[in-house]
């Protein structure tokens, strides 16, 4: 075991040096990946995504003889910390993390440290990605991806309300305040330590900030104070009306969804336009819930997978990343009965048969059309999220 691990480690060094995976000879990459095992570090808070990863594992085992192991994370930062800890302990090969599902601050942290492998733009299926129509696939939170991560699903903020209790939900973050004031304790957002909770605040920032253009650049102290002042005024007014008077917050999206299902709240934020439809089908939300987007548009982004430069099995990780970009996997992910995640591919670039996979997909109840989803707002620079979370943490931890 130890000998073979060292051997594979050498192989990893060959692939990783200089921090670039050579996937030009793709059949050779696939051949070398046979029999290898990929530790896919992915946030495990969503059962549908977990089931999708389980399906992907079965498929790559059957087609490529690659063992895909889902390392279930409570928070993506666990994997980031692990990579950084390994690097700081001097382990430059044979790392425990082969593939990470990430974006935003986690991606930036690893990119800045130079801890990521450049591989994505050489994947055969990357040519199918809609880089023009979905710029978030190559620019993550204003940061050029540079082939250091491969997109695999699109996400956009929607709100989910129980139409039985709230027929006319608030259609802007400003209106959210009035709603909360008249429906005390019926609105909750996840803790801002969770990406979804942080996005709730960013969405409000977009609407309330005097000059949106500053969000494109890294936040410094003075820009942050100016840009976020109206956000905190709004939030200080909102917080006492939140669930538990804004003293406690649900851990994440699924916990918030439980509250909606239990009838503890009437309105929640979600990063998946199909979440309502999916949850209705699996009995996790009542059939009366509906999704909608805010009038001014909502934040959208892409999810990526990245390979740390010290990954034990970078080649096999490339095979998995390429599979996630395949029309087969993308169409399954977009199926509203499976995951409902909008594809990153450009359907025009697909063969007729592959396009059919998408055109034949069913539509779920309460799903939004592309027109209804409206235009997406690009994510601000990651530093805004980091600072907003820190400031929120400070404000809500103080008495």
């Amino acid at each position, binding site marked *: 075991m130890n000998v073979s691990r060292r051997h594979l480690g050498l192989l990893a060094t060959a692939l990783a040096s200089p921090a670039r995976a050579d996937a030009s000879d793709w059949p050779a990459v696939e051949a070398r990946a046979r029999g290898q095992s990929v*530790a896919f*570090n992915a946030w*495990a*808070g*969503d*059962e549908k995504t977990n*089931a999708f990863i*389980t399906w992907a594992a079965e498929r790559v085992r059957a087609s490529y003889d690659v063992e895909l*192991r*889902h*390392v*279930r*994370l*409570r928070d993506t*930062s*666990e*994997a980031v*910390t*692990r990579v*950084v*800890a*390994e690097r*700081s*302990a*001097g*382990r430059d090969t*044979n790392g*425990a*993390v082969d593939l990470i599902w990430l974006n935003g*601050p986690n991606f930036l*942290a690893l990119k800045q440290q130079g801890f990521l492998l450049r591989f994505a733009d050489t994947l055969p299926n990357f040519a199918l990605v809609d880089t023009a129509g979905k710029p978030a696939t190559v620019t993550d939170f204003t940061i050029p991806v540079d082939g250091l991560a491969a997109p695999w699903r699109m996400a956009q903020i929607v709100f989910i309300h129980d139409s039985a209790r709230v027929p006319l939900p608030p259609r802007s973050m400003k209106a959210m305040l009035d709603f909360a004031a008249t429906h*005390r*304790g019926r609105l909750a957002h996840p*803790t801002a330590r969770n990406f979804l909770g942080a996005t709730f605040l960013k969405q409000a920032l977009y609407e309330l900030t005097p000059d949106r253009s500053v969000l494109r650049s890294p936040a410094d102290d003075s820009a942050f104070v100016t840009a976020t002042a109206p956000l905190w005024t709004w939030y200080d007014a909102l917080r006492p009306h939140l*669930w*538990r008077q804004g*003293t*406690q*917050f*649900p*851990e*994440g999206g*699924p*916990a*918030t969804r*439980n*509250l909606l*299902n*239990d*009838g*503890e709240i009437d309105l929640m934020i979600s990063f998946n336009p199909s979440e309502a439809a999916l949850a209705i089908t699996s*009995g*996790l939300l*009542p059939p009366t819930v509906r999704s909608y987007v805010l009038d001014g548009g909502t934040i959208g982004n892409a999810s990526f997978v990245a390979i740390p430069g010290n990954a034990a099995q970078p080649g096999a990780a490339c095979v998995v990343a390429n599979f996630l970009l395949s029309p087969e996997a993308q169409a399954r992910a977009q199926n509203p009965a499976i995951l409902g995640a909008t594809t990153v591919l450009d359907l025009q670039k697909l063969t007729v048969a592959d396009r059919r996979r998408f055109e034949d997909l069913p539509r779920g109840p309460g799903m939004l059309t592309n027109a209804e989803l409206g235009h997406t707002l690009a994510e601000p620079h990651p530093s805004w999220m*980091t600072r907003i979370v820190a400031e929120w943490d*400070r404000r*809500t*931890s*103080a*008495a």
Partner: protein
Amino acid sequence: MPKALPTALAAGVVALPVLGGLLGTILPAFGILPALGGHHFSLDPWRALLAQPGLGVSVWLSVSTGLAATLISGASVALFCAAFHGTRGFRLAQAAIAPLLATPHVAIAIGLLAIAAPSGLVARAIAPLAGWSTPPDVASVNDAAGISLVLGLVLKEAPYLLLMTLAALNQIPAMRLMAMARSLGQPAPVAFLKIVFPLVYRQIRLPVLAVLAYAMSVVDVAILLGPERRPPLAVLVVRWFFDPDLSKTFPAAAAACLVLICTAAALLIWYAAERALGPLQRFWAASGGRSGAMAIRLGGLALAILLALATLSLAAAAIWSVAGPWRFPNLLPIRFGLASWTAQQASLAAPFRTTLATALAATALALVFSVAALEAVARHGRAARQGLLAFTLLPLLVPQASFLFGVQVALLSLDLDGGWAALIWAHLVFVLPYVLLSLTAPYVALDPRLAHTAACLGASPFRILITVKLPILLRPLLSATAVGVAVSAGQYLATLFAGGGRMATLATEAVTLASGGDRRVMGVFAVAQSLLPIVFFAAALLLPRLVWRRRAALA
């Protein structure tokens, strides 16, 4: 067997990682962690820590929940034993704690959530009476004061202390003492607290202190039942250690040191309370007063209620695992089925195997080591015992959160993290003290005349061990095994830090999924996590009865 061997082994296996890990946490707390660019002594980590808003609340929460959980667990056990020792209810409780002892903390916590949450079973039962169509906006769990956290801890620690008390009762002439006191006209409950309990407490003191140290630094239960804002200190430590902003590592290390300081303070408070109460107890015992029996009987009921609630929690988790759609305020799901189990089959298999293999390996090692060590102590006397205990019990009294980070750094630099050896070792560190603790009292209390008689008949020390001592100790050995398996199956932080992300057990998966996910999936993992130790506890309970069915005193 060389005199120093057990002590040396204990030092190497247990004390080294604890003390080394502690050092690996203390140094970064003072700015020294070369891998992250910390080369000079500095107080900045402490300044950053102290500047943290809400830190005082977190510290207070850790200390208060730790002390409260320990006090309530201990007092409820003491009162229960006083009130019901020798009765039918007592034997019933003995049987009732077995599944609870086996169940990991996280599983009980998940079940308690299903009962006590605003949308839980209690609220659903009240809903038709109170006319609720939606759950009340009340923090009945995850409350800022940590009441639900204390309750969750007590549900698990009270059965553990009851088990320890039962073992201790077996080692003292409780029935004779009781008969004597009763012949002096003392009502049974009063007599128990006056003369039996002090003897029992001497034997269960270490477990009580271990409960205190554990409750002060628990992370998994606190994540589930504690407040999200201003959580207990240990939760903050783990949050900061896993923050992608690596500069947080330094204040995290300082916070880990603070956990250590708080635990030491809480242990001192406990010790001071013991010193203060001891003379009072003796004065009361000598005074000859007979009153209080009724109050003790009433107080004894508290444990019965706690045991019932814990059992209900387990049941609630099990019901969720087979529930179909189940919305508030329905008291029962619309339908039952195994859909959640089928869906999780693939996710359960690998963690289950890892959990089983690790638990078996760590427990087997711990048993061999404990017997060897106790045997050496029996042959070489008390001197060996002191060193052995001091080293082995370290991980029980040193909070996990304060040394596991240092252990992780060390494992990483030795390229040992994420392997079986590291995982089993990390579990052994926590399993060994519990196994040794479970065995020490019965071992020490062994009637020396048996061994002397065997020796007079010409038996070698080894033969005495195998043919005389171990058979007599079958029951404690089996319960120690079960305790070991349960401790291993419940390890969350140790697995997280030593597993390097490569090794997932049911404990880590349960906490990952339990952060608010689908309650049915949480139920599945809670039950799966409990099954393995429950099997071992059942065996520990039944096997002695089978093996010693002709020797009732041993069974």
